[in-house]
C-alpha cells in the first residue's frame, strides 16, 4: 500500500532533523514549532526536503508559517502544490 503524504512527511522530518522520536509518534495536529522544537533553521531544512522529496517548488510567497505549523498543514500544502 502507498504511504500517505502525512507518513512520508513524518519520516522526512525525523530523518532530516535527526529527531529522536519515531515518525509515527509525531501527531498530525500538534505544532511542529512548539511541540517538536522545530526552529527557523530546521524549517529551511524542511523546505528543501519538501522540494527534493515531493518535487514541489517552494516559492517566496509560500514562506507563510501557517503552511509549516503542523503535519496536517504541511500535507495540505504539498497536495495543493501537486506534490508527487
Amino acid at each position, binding site marked *: 500500500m502507498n504511504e500517505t503524504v502525512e507518513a512520508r512527511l513524518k519520516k522526512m522530518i525525523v530523518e532530516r*532533523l535527526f529527531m529522536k522520536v519515531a515518525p509515527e509518534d509525531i501527531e498530525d495536529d500538534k505544532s511542529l514549532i512548539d511541540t517538536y522544537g522545530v526552529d527557523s*533553521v530546521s524549517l*529551511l531544512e524542511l523546505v528543501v526536503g519538501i522540494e527534493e522529496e515531493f518535487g514541489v517548488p517552494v516559492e517566496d510567497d509560500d514562506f507563510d508559517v501557517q503552511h509549516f505549523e503542523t503535519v496536517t498543514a504541511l500535507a495540505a500544502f504539498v497536495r495543493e502544490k501537486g506534490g508527487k
Partner: protein
Amino acid sequence: MNVTQHFIERDDVRLCATLHRPDAHTHAGILLCPPLFEERKSAGRALAEAAGTLCSRGCTVLRFDYSGCGDSSGDLDSFTIRDWFADIACAQNFLKEHLHGPPSGIAGLRLGASLAALHLAGGGQSAFLILWEPVIDGNTYIRQELRRSLTREMVTFGKNRRSSADLIADLEHGKSVDLDGYSLSPALYADFCGLNLAMINPPPVPGLLLNISHRDTLSPALSELQAKWEPNTTFQVVQLQPFWNLVGYIDASPVIRRTGEWLAARLPGETRHDQEQGGTQLPAAP
C-alpha cells in the same frame, strides 16, 4: 599541546589566528578555512575541536578568520573572494614558518572548503586538501542564505516581508543587503554567483571530501563531482546533523575521526591505519 593567538598582517588587514602546536614532532601542517555568516558562528566549536584533535595526532593546525570576518579587522562588505584567497595564502605562509619541513595542507568547511579548492585551482599550493561538505554552486548557496533569512522572518512575523527576488534586485542594483546581521555587498554577491566547483579541474593533490548530511549516499551534486575528481580525491559519506547550521552543540567527532584516519594513512611517522586502501605518503614541504 601549545595554543597561541596571533594577528597575521596582510597589507592593511590583521587576520586573527589561533595556532595549535603539538608538544612533540609535527607530521604535517593544516590550515583550517572556516565557513561564512552564521555557519561560521555555529561551526566555531567543532572547528576548535578539530584543531585540538588533529594537533593531538601530531599536526600543527592554524585556525583563522578572513578579512572582515570574526575577529579579523575590516568590514565584511569591503572584501571579495579575491581578498580571501590572499588571506589563505598569507595564513599558509605563516603556518609554514612554524613547520620547518613537514607537508602543509588545507582543510575547509562549507564555503571555506570551496575557497580552499578554488585557491588550489587558481595556482595556490597545498600538499593535500580536506573538504568538509563544500559549497558546490555559489549561486544556489547564496539563494539558500537569502531563504534562510526569509525563514527567520517567517518564524518571527508569520510571513516574510520581502521576497528573495526583492533582495536580489537590490544587490543587482548595487545595494548591499542585510543577511541576518551580515552586510552582503553586490561585489561579494557577484563572486558567489560565479563560484562553481563543478567547473574547475580536479585538485592536483591528494584529497578527502566528506559529504555530511542525513543521507547514507553521496548527494547528486557530489556524485557528479566524484566522477571527475576520483581517484585523487576520496569521497566519503558521514551521516551527521549539519553542525554548521545549529546553535546547539553537535558532536562532530565522526568528521574529525574520518579526517584523522585519512591523514594517518598518508603522513610519514603516523600509524598507517588504511595503508591497504591505497594511501600514498605525502611529500615533505620544499
